[in-house]
C-alpha cells in the first residue's frame, strides 16, 4: 500500500543535504582518481616492503645492526616512536576537543584526522616492539601470572607506556569507528553494487538513523570525546616521563610534560594541514574543506607552534637560571656539539617558516600551508632526535661519553614506517567516506535553524 501525497515545499538546504551526501559517498563508491591512487599505493607498498625487510633484518640479527650503543641506547627507534605518537595526538584533539566546544568547522576535518591518528599510533606502537629486538617476548610487558612468579615493575614509566599506548590505540579505534558508522550506512544506501552493499552493510552494523539510536550514539560519542581529551594529555605526558623521570642532564625537567604535549599537537596539526591540502586538491573538495578551514588550521598551527617555542625558551632559561654545571654543559652540547644540526634544524624548521602564518593570505593558500606543515614535521623530527641524543651522548661521566650515528637499517626502517602509515591511509581514502557527511548536514541544519530564529 503506497500513497502519494503532496511533496513538502522546502528550499535549497534540502538539495544541499543530498548533494553533500552524494559528494562524500560517491568517492568510495566510484573512485575518481584511480590511476593516481594506484601510483601512490604502489609507492606506499614499496615503502611497506622496505619496512618488512628492515624489520626482518633486525629480528634476524638483533638490534646490533643499528647504530645504538651504550651510552646512546635509544636512537631513532625511540625518537621516531615519540614523533609518530605526537603526530597522532592532533587527530584526537581536533576531533574530540572541537566537538565538545561545538566548533562545527571540525566536521570537515575530523574523519581523516582521526584516521591519521590511528595509523600514526600503529607506527609508534611498532617501534618499542622492534626496539626489543626479541619481539616474541613482547608479552612480558603485560601483567600475567607466569612461572617466574614476577610482575612488571609498575613504578617505572616504561610500564606506564605499555598501558598508555594500548589504551590510546583502542580508544582511538573505537572513537573513529562509531563516528564513521552513520556514513557507512549512507554509503551502503547509495551504492548499486552488491559487493559494496555487503561490505558497507556489514560494517554499518544495520544503522538506520533511529532517533533513539542517535540519542544513545550521541551520549556514547560525546562521552568518549570528553574522555579522549585528557587521555591525549596523559599519554604524551607519560611519554615525556620516559625522559623526565630519568636522572640524565637535559631530561630531568618538570617542563617536559607540557612541552611534549604541545609539541605533539604542533607536529600533528602540521600533518593534518598537509593531508587536508592534498585531499581537497586531489578530490575537488574545496566546497567542503574551504579556505576558512585552511585558515583555522593555519591559526591552530601558529598558536601551538608559539606555545612550543615557549617550551624551548623556558628550557634554556631554567638551565641557565639553575646554573647546574652539567645541565649548562648539556645545553652547550645541544647548541654547538656534534648534534647541533638537530637543535638548529628544529628551531629553524619549526619556527621560522611558521611566522608566515601571521598573514591571512598565506594561511588560506594551500601550497604555502602544505610547505609550512612539511617544514614543521621535519623540525619536530629534529626536536625529538635532539632531545634524545644530545642528552645521552655526553652523560655525567666523561668515561661514558660516546657518539651515536644511525645505521642504514635504522634509516630504512624509518622510511618503511612511512609505508606502514601510508598504506592503510590510502586504503581509508579509497574505501571509506573520508569526510563526515552527517555531521556537516547536522551543522547545516542547525545554522539554518539559528538563522530562522534570529
Amino acid at each position: 500500500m503506497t500513497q502519494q501525497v503532496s511533496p513538502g515545499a522546502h528550499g535549497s538546504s534540502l538539495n544541499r543535504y543530498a548533494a553533500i551526501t552524494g559528494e562524500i559517498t560517491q568517492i568510495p563508491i566510484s573512485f575518481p582518481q584511480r590511476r593516481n591512487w594506484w601510483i601512490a599505493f604502489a609507492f606506499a607498498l614499496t615503502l611497506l616492503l622496505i619496512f618488512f625487510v628492515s624489520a626482518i633484518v633486525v629480528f634476524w640479527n638483533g638490534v646490533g645492526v643499528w647504530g645504538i650503543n651504550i651510552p646512546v641506547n635509544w636512537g631513532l627507534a625511540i625518537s621516531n616512536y615519540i614523533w609518530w605518537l605526537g603526530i597522532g595526538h592532533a587527530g584526537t584533539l581536533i576531533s574530540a576537543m572541537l566537538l565538545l566546544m561545538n566548533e562545527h568547522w571540525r566536521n570537515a576535518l575530523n574523519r581523516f584526522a582521526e584516521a591519521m591518528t590511528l595509523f600514526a599510533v600503529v607506527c609508534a606502537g611498532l617501534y618499542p616492539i622492534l626496539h626489543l629486538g626479541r619481539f616474541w617476548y613482547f608479552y612480558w610487558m603485560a601483567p600475567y601470572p607466569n612461572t617466574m612468579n614476577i610482575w612488571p615493575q609498575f613504578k617505572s614509566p616504561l610500564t606506564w607506556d605499555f598501558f598508555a599506548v594500548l589504551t590510546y590505540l583502542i580508544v582511538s579505534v573505537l572513537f573513529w569507528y562509531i563516528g564513521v558508522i552513520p556514513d557507512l550506512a549512507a554509503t551502503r544506501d547509495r551504492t548499486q553494487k552488491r559487493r559494496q552493499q555487503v561490505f558497507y552493510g556489514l560494517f554499518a552494523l544495520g544503522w538506520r538513523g533511529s532517533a533513539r539510536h542517535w540519542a544513545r550514539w550521541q551520549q556514547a560519542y560525546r562521552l568518549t570525546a570528553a574522555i579522549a581529551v585528557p587521555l591525549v594529555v596523559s599519554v604524551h605526558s607519560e611519554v615525556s616521563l620516559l625522559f623526565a623521570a630519568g636522572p640524565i642532564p637535559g631530561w630531568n625537567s618538570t617542563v617536559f610534560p607540557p612541552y611534549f604535549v604541545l609539541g605533539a599537537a604542533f607536529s600533528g596539526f602540521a600533518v593534518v594541514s598537509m593531508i587536508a591540502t592534498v585531499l581537497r586538491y586531489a578530490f575537488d573538495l574545496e566546497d567542503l574543506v574551504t579556505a576558512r578551514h585552511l585558515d583555522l588550521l593555519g591559526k591552530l598551527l601558529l598558536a601551538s607552534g608559539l606555545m612550543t617555542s615557549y617550551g624551548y625558551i623556558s628550557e634554556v632559561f631554567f638551565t641557565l637560571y639553575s646554573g647546574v654545571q652539567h645541565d649548562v654543559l648539556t645545553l652547550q652540547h645541544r647548541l654547538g656539539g656534534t648534534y647541533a644540526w638537530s637543535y638548529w634544524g628544529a628551531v629553524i624548521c619549526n619556527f621560522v617558516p611558521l611566522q608566515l602564518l601571521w598573514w591571512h593570505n598565506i594561511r588560506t593558500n594551500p601550497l604555502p600551508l602544505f610547505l609550512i606543515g612539511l617544514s614543521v614535521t621535519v623540525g619536530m623530527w629534529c626536536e625529538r632526535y635532539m632531545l634524545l641524543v644530545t642528552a645521552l651522548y655526553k652523560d655525567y661521566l666523561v668515561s661514558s661519553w660516546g657518539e651515536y650515528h644511525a645505521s642504514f637499517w635504522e634509516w630504512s626502517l624509518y622510511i618503511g614506517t612511512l609505508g606502514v602509515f601510508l598504506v592503510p591511509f590510502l586504503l581509508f581514502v579509497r574505501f571509506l567516506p573520508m569526510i563526515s557527511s552527517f555531521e556537516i548536514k547536522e551543522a547545516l541544519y542547525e545554522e539554518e535553524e539559528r538563522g530562522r530564529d534570529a
Partner: protein
Amino acid sequence: MRKKKGGVMREPAPHEPIFGILAEFSHPDALRDAVRKTYAGGYTHIDTYTPFPIEGLAEALHFQDSRVPLLCLAGGITGALTGYGMQVYTNLDFPIDIGGRPLISWQAFMLITFELTVLFAVLFAIAGMLLFNRLPRLNYPVFDIESFHLASSDKFFLIVFSNDPRFDPEETSSFLSDLDPVRVDQVGKAEEAE
C-alpha cells in the same frame, strides 16, 4: 505489551503481519511537527529515522535513557579499581624494596589507574550504546521500503509501530497522510515476500 521507563520499546513481534506505517518527510521541521501531532493523536509507539541527529527529537519521543552514561561511569569505576588493585596486589605479591621507599606508592600508580579508567569507561559506553540499540543487526523491516535509502541522505521518516495500542492499518495511514508527508508506506512481512 511492555514499555519500560526511558522510552525503551519492544518492536512488533515477528508473527504480526504488519510492522508499522512509515511516513516520509522532506524537512526536519516537518518531521518534528509530525511527531508532535502524532503524539497528540494518541500514538505512543513511534520512532523516526533521520540522516543526522536532530536536536530535541529524542526528547519529543519521550526518550530518557541514561543507561549509556551510567554504564560509562560504571566502566570508569571498574577500570580504576582494576588498575589500582592490580598494582597494589602485584606489589604485595612480590615486594621489591627499593631503598626503603614505600611499597604502595600511590603516586606512581596513578597513571595506569587513569589509563584503565579511560579504557573501561569507553569500552562500557560504546558496548552499552550498541547493546541498547540492538546493533549490529543484519536486517530490519523498514529497509524493505524502496525510498528508505534516503533516510541516510535527505529524507526524514516517521514510523508508527503496529504494536501501538491505537494502531489500525487503515486509520493510522490516513492519519499520517493528513500530516502532509511526501508519501506513506506500509512496512510489513507481506511486502518482504515479494
